[in-house]
């Protein structure tokens, strides 16, 4: 059968038996779950045994692409990783969430599809370090003894030299020493510039899988090339003429933005991208001349410098570079190092606990030594490597309450940004992210600020919020339930924001760039038309949004099966407290507010949760889908999951 948009195959690799199997993509599954995490989560609900240890051979890693990835649709470079993640999400260490990581790519996704595969499913555990080579000619489990232990940048370079294509690099996904040593907040890297799979590096490390290489030239065919080209070109021009369009990521305002601009030596983006959100910065003189940092979140060096009281960007880049090269999540490492340092200073931790490390706040060498302890699991680092719950148990602190750093934790992971601070960095009093705080509470994995929630990075008006919501493809009745003349219901809006954002992921289009650059892509009718033209599977905007809702519910089902319910959608206690940090941008009171600047109490947030579940058609008390909702979404075969709780 000829496939359009899709590559047409799913690759199954069992590292236990070294069996490699190619399975044609089931078009019924493709039509129902579209692609990306839709198909990835469907594979998991069919194959993942509930209750397993995420670091056991039974866990399943699913790498996925979407049907628009690798085309000229702006921002169509997004790939996905579905698995059971390695961070303990409960005090007893028995609960772990199943979710999606979305990540950018240059060659990885495009070459995966050109090798002939929409998804790669990996099970088992290799008897020795290996990497997977996936090409259109063959699939091979290769020996990785020579690259085991090497950092993410070096491994990427070696593999690209070894498997170079005719017109450029092969695609690469790699883990660093942190993943190999099962540090639970380790992550993968794709094509050198894209963080890929926060909390999944250890899952790969446990399988002794160091990397995946992709390369091929099968070609991604389009069902109706003429129609596809016409609508894509029209959208490209619409984006170019949009006043918000910018080809590079904003580097921030004020002193930090100026400094980052001066130090910028390059930008990188994803395949198909009309805007590049990764930037590379290098220290130009002095002691740290030549030290560089590359990534997608330019505020990180500034966060590092201020939180850890480092002297300058030279030190911040050095520390950041070390975390990245080891394949550690920078944000979790930063938060955890600060907590441990604070507890050391207070005498909760002794010098023996720290392996003789002398406390020196603001000292780069002290922090570098602490990173070594985490990655190599020594002294306090061995406990840190196990995640927030084990660490806080050792320290006698509740992981989900404030410990003085302003870090909110939900389902065992620290949020990438704090909803109390983030909006106020850009607009005093009100935020540009109407649902971010709520989104991070209700999702299976508290994702990026922007993923799976309605998010806008520009200062938008009430009218803009309403316009964006209309463009999600919702009905007038639904719109009327959300909006009054001058107010919107955050809980109800979050439901549709989550579904719409899921649609972007199903297709393989970037949700990030939509928010700050490619606003015209927030257009469900256009996305439905692009999908129809690319694949030949006609779909209405309403049905596409419904597919987003279906997959959102599917992810929830996987987590309900793991024991999650409303009790886990817990409001981080720090969200109810004022944040007290020395950052100039955070001066004054910083309580969690709604989009209109109204301070939120616990009761307000609980009410917000009630309306969110109600709009989702879920059981409000349990916070899980009802059988009626599952039947409506054609997921009735999984109803026993919710009926058993």
């Amino acid at each position, binding site marked *: 059968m000829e496939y359009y948009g899709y590559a047409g195959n799913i690759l199954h690799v069992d590292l236990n038996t070294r069996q490699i199997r190619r399975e044609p993509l089931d078009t019924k599954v493709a039509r129902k779950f579209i692609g990306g995490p839709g198909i990835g989560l469907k594979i998991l609900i069919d194959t993942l045994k509930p209750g397993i240890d995420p670091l056991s051979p039974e866990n399943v890693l699913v790498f996925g692409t979407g049907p628009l990835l690798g085309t000229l649709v702006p921002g169509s470079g997004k790939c996905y990783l579905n698995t059971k993640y390695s961070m303990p999400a409960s005090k007893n260490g028995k609960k772990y969430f199943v979710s999606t990581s979305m990540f950018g790519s240059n*060659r990885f996704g495009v070459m995966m599809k050109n090798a002939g595969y929409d998804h790669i499913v990996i099970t088992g555990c290799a008897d020795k370090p290996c990497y997977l080579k996936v090409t259109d000619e063959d699939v091979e489990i290769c020996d990785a003894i020579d690259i085991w232990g090497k950092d993410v940048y070096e491994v990427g370079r070696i593999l690209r030299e070894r498997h170079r294509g005719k017109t450029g690099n092969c695609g690469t996904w790699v883990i660093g020493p942190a993943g190999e040593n099962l540090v639970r907040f380790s992550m993968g890297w794709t094509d050198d510039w894209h963080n890929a799979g926060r909390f999944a590096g250890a899952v790969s490390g446990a399988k002794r899988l160091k990397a995946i290489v992709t390369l091929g030239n*099968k070609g991604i065919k389009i069902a109706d090339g003429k129609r596809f080209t016409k609508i894509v070109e029209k959208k490209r021009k619409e984006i170019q003429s949009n006043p918000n369009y910018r080809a590079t990521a904003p580097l921030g305002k004020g002193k930090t933005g100026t400094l980052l601009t001066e130090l910028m030596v390059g930008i990188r983006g994803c395949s198909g991208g009309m805007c590049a959100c990764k930037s590379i910065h290098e220290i130009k003189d002095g002691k740290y001349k030549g030290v560089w940092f590359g990534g997608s979140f330019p505020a990180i060096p500034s966060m590092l410098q201020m939180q850890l009281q480092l002297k300058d960007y030279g030190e911040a880049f050095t520390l950041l570079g070390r975390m990245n090269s080891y394949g550690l999540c920078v944000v979790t490492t930063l938060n955890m190092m600060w907590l441990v340092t604070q507890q050391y200073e207070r005498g909760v931790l002794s010098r023996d606990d720290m392996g003789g490390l002398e406390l020196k706040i603001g000292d780069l060498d002290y922090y570098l030594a602490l990173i070594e302890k985490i990655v190599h699991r020594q002294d306090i680092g061995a406990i840190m490597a196990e995640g927030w719950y084990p660490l806080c148990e050792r320290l006698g602190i509740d992981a989900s309450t404030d410990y003085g750093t302003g870090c909110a934790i939900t389902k065992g992971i620290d949020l990438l940004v704090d909803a109390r601070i983030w909006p106020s960095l850009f607009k005093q009093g009100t935020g540009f992210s109407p649902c971010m705080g709520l989104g991070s509470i209700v999702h299976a994995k508290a994702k990026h600020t922007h993923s799976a929630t309605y998010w806008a990075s520009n200062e938008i008006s009430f009218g803009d919020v309403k316009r964006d919501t209309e463009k999600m493809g919702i009905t007038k009745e639904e719109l009327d339930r959300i909006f009054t003349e001058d107010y919107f219901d955050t809980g109800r809006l979050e439901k549709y924001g989550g579904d719409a954002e899921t649609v972007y992921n199903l297709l393989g289009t970037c949700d990030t760039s939509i928010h700050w650059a490619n606003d015209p892509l927030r257009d469900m009718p256009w996305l439905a038309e692009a999908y129809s033209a690319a694949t030949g599977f006609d779909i209405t905007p309403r049905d596409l949004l419904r597919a987003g809702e279906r997959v959102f519910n599917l992810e929830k089902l996987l987590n309900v099966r793991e024991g999650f319910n409303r009790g886990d959608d817990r409001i981080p206690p720090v969200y109810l407290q004022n944040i007290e940090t020395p950052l100039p941008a955070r001066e004054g009171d910083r309580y969690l507010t709604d989009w209109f600047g109204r301070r939120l109490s616990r009761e307000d947030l609980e009410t917000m949760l009630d309306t969110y579940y109600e709009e989702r058609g879920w059981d409000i008390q349990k916070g899980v889908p009802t059988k009626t909702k599952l039947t409506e979404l054609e997921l009735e075969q999984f109803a026993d999951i919710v009926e058993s709780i």
Partner: protein
Amino acid sequence: MGKENISTDAEKCTGCMRCQLICSFTYTGAFNPEKSCIVINPPDEICFTDECREGCSLCTRHCEFGAITRLKAG
């Protein structure tokens, strides 16, 4: 090889591959970077294969970052 009507600046290349995508889609009917006529390896290299069509500059129209630009005649 270089092209007379096209200027390249590999340091500006973001690796988006839009040039390779439009090239391969136009001439092979599928999105297939390995069958395009452009070799990219940022920040070191952008060049064209021997199969590159004389006078075609589709890639310049799809580069948003100034890495591949069309030179004005004369």
